[in-house]
């Protein structure tokens, strides 16, 4: 059930699920620079395969993606993979219902696009600690 990486000596793994190639690349660049091991996927379906068989320390997911959206992915991770691993959702939506629902299904943080690249980096570090 719990796939959280508990080995403190190894590099922490951050999984980015984002269909926007620019955003995922920018995040990947920063995470790698900050010393994390990064895995990038274009949608939830692709990510599940990895998440089910590998340990990870943080999941960053966009909400609106093809095949399997972010909400479905968060639900799946919470029900089948890990109940405690930190999850951060990213979206351009301002709708309160959507944002509220994201926290209800198990996300730990939510960031609205557009955002400051530096701010995201700080939030990620806070979550992962």
């Amino acid at each position, binding site marked *: 059930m719990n796939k959280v990486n508990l080995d403190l000596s190894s590099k922490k793994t951050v999984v980015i699920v984002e269909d926007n190639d*620019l955003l995922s690349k*920018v995040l*990947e*660049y920063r995470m790698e620079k900050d010393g994390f091991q990064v895995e990038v996927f274009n949608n939830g379906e692709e990510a599940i395969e990895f998440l089910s068989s590998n340990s990870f320390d943080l999941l960053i997911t966009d909400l609106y993606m093809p095949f399997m959206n972010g909400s479905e992915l968060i639900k799946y991770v919470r029900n089948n993979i890990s109940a405690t691993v930190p999850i951060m959702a990213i979206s351009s939506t301002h709708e309160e219902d959507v944002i509220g629902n994201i926290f209800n299904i198990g996300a730990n943080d939510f960031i609205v696009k*557009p955002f*400051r*690249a*530096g701010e995201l980096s700080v939030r990620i570090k806070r979550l992962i600690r």
Partner: protein
Amino acid sequence: MKKFKWVFLRGGIFVVIFSLFFGWGQIQEIQAAINFTEPEYPFLEDVPSGLSFDRELALTEAAEIEARLTLLGVGSQDLIKNLSEFFRSLAGDFFSFVDKISLGYSLLFYLALFAIFFLLNITSVVIVVIISNWIFNRRAIYHKYKRKEIIEIVSPYFYDDLEDHEAAGIVETLTQYKSLKDKQIIIDVLIEGKRNFTGEGSIKIKALYQVLQLHKVSLHKIKYGSWYRRSVGLRELAFLGRRAYKTEIEKYINDNHQYVRTEAILSYMLLDDVNPFGFLMDLKYSFVRWDSLSIYYTMYFNGIEPPPMAHMLNHSDLQVRLFLLRMISIYNQLDAVREVAKCLLDEHAEVRQEAVITLRALEYYRIKVLMKNRYINECQPVRLEILRSMKHFIEDDDISFIEERVRKGSFDEVFEAVKLLYKFSGYGEQRLWLLDEELEGRIAVFIKHVAEPRNKHVA
């Protein structure tokens, strides 16, 4: 003589072309048609076996038909001898036509020609599709490859902690992309970055757009492109450009194409956050409702602060006046009430109606007296809005005015007035039942409708 020669020569050329065009077989048929005399129904033995006429098969079929006819008791002894006549009697002109054309080889020639032409057509279409697909795929692969390459280069640029020499290196690398296609890919990536990042990253994107001289690409599109390219160019300038480009964008606010005008308006708003509605005073084309919706959403999603609008309510365009009234209502600009109240005297009923709605939204109670005074001279839609607005302003001294509407108003007015009185107080309801007695039960249905709990949301 000369003239005769010329006619003869022309006739000769005509015959040659005609022969080449229709073929020798056709000429033979025409000749046969000229020499044609009414046949005395030739026997079947005289009919040659042609392309679509099998004599043996015909004989067999004829024998079968004869046998059937004999069974039916129909006398037909001469059928075999004069089978042609028999067919003609069965199918009339159709068979005579088939007799004539099916025996000519020219038909086959034309069919073959048609088939070749058809196949050539199909082949050319297939070739065009394959080539277009190939070109499209090549372009897509190129675009994907270059985009990936540019994203790799640009991605460090969005963070604050980038060293100066690193930033200079990125700029240097990006200046290597000289072609228009590559520059367009850079612009697309920067726009996407601008949509996703704010703060320092966003400022850097704009700087990069300037340093790489990409604004020239956008300006070129605006000046020389089709309406679509002009729109795209305007959008690029608005997203990535500076306020200095406002004067360039202003030129397209009165463009011939509607989409370009809309894009220019939105771009203007994005670039001029101090006075985003400044373009309204320069409008030459009528302002369309779609624009007002686009403007509202542009303001909403880009966090543009609404400017003061009251001073523009005397605009000559009716749609602009309506738009401003709605915006004043949405952004609750209370300091505009005086100017909005003036719109109650506007020459257009639509503006007066919208003014009543706006004043109701702003909850400006002092306007009640003016509304009541204007009521009798107003048209039906404005009257209804005034009655709806009274819900917010109603006091005891308004009851006689509302009762008068119940007595003399139209169906809709009576309905609104009954709702108003019923909701006002218990006294209002009592007055309604008294009025119903006075009007011999004519408003009982309205009162019951309003009193019905299921209609609470309507009432």
